[in-house]
């Protein structure tokens, strides 16, 4: 089965820190790489997404870095806040949905 491997499993940072979550994929046919954010008791919600023709994308405090040759991509959260505490999932798809999700990273931002 096509996989997306995500690390770390959990992460604790101080407020204002820059947590980094990494994902690696195997299938070079993947062409769409989103990150989803999930709060307890809620469904995942799209945070930011990137396509392999760019190496970086920023939206507000969230940045995706993409390394096509290494088949890796990562999420950086600038100036992290306690409200960013959630589980983050990377995902991938090719040509068309559906998405294949990573196992998730539980982020805790402490004041």
């Amino acid at each position, binding site marked *: 089965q096509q996989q997306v491997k995500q690390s770390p499993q959990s992460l604790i940072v101080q407020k204002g820190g820059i947590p980094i979550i990494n994902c690696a994929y195997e299938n070079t046919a993947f062409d769409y790489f989103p990150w989803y954010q999930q709060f307890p*008791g809620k469904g*995942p919600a799209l945070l930011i*997404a990137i396509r392999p023709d760019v190496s970086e994308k920023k939206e507000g405090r969230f940045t995706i870095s993409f390394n096509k040759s290494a088949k890796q991509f990562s999420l950086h959260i600038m100036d992290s806040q306690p409200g960013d505490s959630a589980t983050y999932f990377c995902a991938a798809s090719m040509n*068309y949905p*559906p998405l294949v999700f990573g196992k*998730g990273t539980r982020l805790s931002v402490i004041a």
Partner: protein
Amino acid sequence: EAGVAQSPRYKIIEKRQSVAFWCNPISGHATLYWYQQILGQGPKLLIQFQNNGVVDDSQLPKDRFSAERLKGVDSTLKIQPAKLEDSAVYLCASSSGQVGEKLFFGSGTQLSVL
């Protein structure tokens, strides 16, 4: 804009019983998905509908799981009979179906099989 509606919110059953989940997608969304999210893992696709036709059900355990999408709108997912390992959150999502289009998820149904 109304989101994806799911019910019930929680369900507790004993193994070998049957259970059904309901989903109402965002109005106008042609594509509907059912995902299974086991505690501590990412969502795993069970079935994808395009309008009222099945696009992908390769990971649906068809000996016990079934799903239908009525008139290309609402959908139900059924498990019969349930096993202990079916304990999970069942998420419904919808999208317009375009390439790269984001998925809108409901809050899910948390199923506990005892």
